[in-house]
């Protein structure tokens, strides 16, 4: 889908985030190349939104980064000053929030919310800013007169478009989409995503696409990373992941939705529930739910329950953290 990625835009190394004493993100490694679409998938509560907030540097107490680094174009964000971070936000990395319903200030006109943001980063007059806001709205397929509207006067889909337009406003190099379509119906979902793709062709930004819906990622993403209980368990180019998923969790996820074409497959979910992060399981965090973790295989079982698997490159571009694969 994309040309060979040359420049690494964002690199996350060993990121650790805690809420109080609970470790929500426990040693994550990610890298995103310029212009690439990286999908981040996992169940609710696995920490994917936390990663997004960490990249945007908008974590609020009691959440805090306790370890690792986030390198944007080579510079570590952890440790930058408040003012530097303020300038970085939105200009270099912007975000499309999950519920556009609530992401817009209810008492401000839409256009003013654009103006706000532009004036925080550049010297523009209000008039020019409003004009640009109108242009941005047209880009996402809305009438530019809508700059004068209040958020409650727009439909859900329209609000989502506004949020996308806002994310583009400063032409950032990376846009994070945090569950951008979860609150919308299927038809609108598709429209929005196609819109994003079209915009990407024109503006050429990288995307981190966060969702629990793996099927969407298989269609839209270049590479996919699967998160479980605060860790990355598998990452690979989309096509490879679909063809040869190696981690049992990934396999379970792929079996959870039916393919549109091809023979009918029996649907199986993944038994059990995500672990309580206050006391994660020992060893491999997935082992209580893993169909391949059986006491009969004594030696393997011992490793699965006592040693945390590390993310290893099994094939080119395909990393997995799993004892089975190591064996």
């Amino acid at each position, binding site marked *: 889908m994309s040309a060979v990625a040359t420049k690494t835009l964002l690199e996350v190394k060993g990121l650790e985030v805690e*809420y*109080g004493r609970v470790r929500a993100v426990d040693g994550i490694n990610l890298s995103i190349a310029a212009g690439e679409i990286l999908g981040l998938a996992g169940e*609710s509560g696995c920490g994917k*939104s936390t990663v997004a*907030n960490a990249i945007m540097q908008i974590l609020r*107490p009691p959440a805090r980064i306790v370890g690792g680094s986030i390198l944007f174009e080579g510079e570590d964000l952890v440790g930058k000053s408040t003012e530097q971070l303020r300038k970085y936000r939105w200009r270099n990395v912007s975000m499309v929030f999950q519920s556009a319903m609530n992401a817009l200030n209810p008492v401000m006109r839409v256009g003013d919310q654009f103006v706000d943001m532009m004036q925080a980063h550049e010297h523009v007059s209000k008039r020019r800013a409003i004009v640009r806001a109108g242009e941005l709205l047209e880009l996402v397929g809305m009438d530019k007169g809508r700059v004068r509207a209040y958020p409650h006067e727009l439909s859900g889909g329209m609000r989502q478009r506004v949020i996308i337009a806002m994310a583009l406003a400063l032409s950032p190099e990376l846009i994070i989409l945090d569950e951008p379509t979860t609150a919308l119906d299927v038809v609108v979902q598709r429209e929005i995503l196609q819109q994003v793709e079209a915009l990407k062709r024109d503006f050429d930004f990288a995307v981190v696409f966060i969702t629990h819906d793996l099927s969407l990622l298989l269609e839209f993403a270049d590479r996919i990373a699967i998160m479980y209980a605060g860790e990355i368990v598998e990452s690979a180019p989309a096509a490879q992941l679909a063809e040869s998923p190696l981690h049992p969790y990934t396999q379970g996820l792929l079996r959870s939705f039916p393919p549109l074409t091809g023979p009918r497959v029996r649907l199986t979910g993944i038994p059990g529930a995500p672990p309580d992060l*206050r006391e994660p399981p020992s060893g491999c965090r997935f082992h209580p739910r893993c169909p391949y973790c059986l006491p009969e295989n004594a030696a393997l079982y011992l490793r699965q329950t006592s040693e945390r698997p590390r993310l290893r490159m099994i094939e080119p571009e395909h990393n997995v953290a799993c004892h089975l694969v190591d064996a």
Partner: protein
Amino acid sequence: MAQLDPTALDLQLAVPKRGIRVGRIRVPGWLALLLRNRKSRAGLFIVAFMVFIAIISPLISVAHPNDFNLLATRQAPSWHHLFGTTDQGSDVFSQVVVGARRSLLLGALAGALATLVAAVLGITAAYVGGIVDEIVNLLTNVFLTIPAIPLLVVVSGYLRTRGMWTMIAVIALVLWAFEARILRAQALTLKNRDFILAAKASGEPTWRIVFGELMPNMISRIAAAFVLVFYISLLVDSGLEFLGLGDMSATSWGVTIYWAQVNSTVLQGEWWPFMFPSLALGLTVLGLVLVLAGIDEVSNPQLRADRKRGRLAALLLGRAAA
């Protein structure tokens, strides 16, 4: 004078059902919860302290509060008269300590009566709905619009006798509206729950549903309502006494302050007859306000200073942190 007013809250979810064991003593769930929260713990201690003082007051008051001694008038605090004496030589300490009894009792009783009226009217209106609801709503709003103090002042003016029970009735009759609205709102949320619908379907009469099903499930909110109306009653009652419109023959904080004001003692620089009863009053109200704030924090985790628990719950319930 509703100077401090908490938001609506729902304590039900937070109370541990069966209480907690401390050594051999079983502490009821709600008490344990309130003791754990810093604010309500402080508040409870203050209120308990005042109640304790009121109870043992005959033992610690040096003289009868109304004893006057013309030789020892207007004396500043000393070892002999801990809080000084009034312009008639009465011991202020005794007045404050004995006055606590009446002030607290009247406030509590008026508060209880007002809460009862508010609960019955509010909950019944919510459950029955229709015209009854409209009427109660109207009544509530009217009593919230007509200012309470002026109304009480005028009504007191017309009263021939101003004994304790009369004052309780009058105050309760004006203050019930404060909480009626909130209790009605909460009853509305419970109205369509399964257990109420089941009771209705099995033919239980309205009064039994209101008293036997709805009220017991709103105990925490009703208790919070009581605390609020309690301290407002305290303020209102002492306020009326200060104006000379309460039961002026009784010994209470407001009456002591009244005499201090009327005799211009303050303007003459004698601060003790008004300062000490005021402190007692303010402290009690502060205690009650703290208890209320604590209840608020317990039922709304976001408000707590220790936000770890609130965030954790959000995290584990899978809500995406935006």
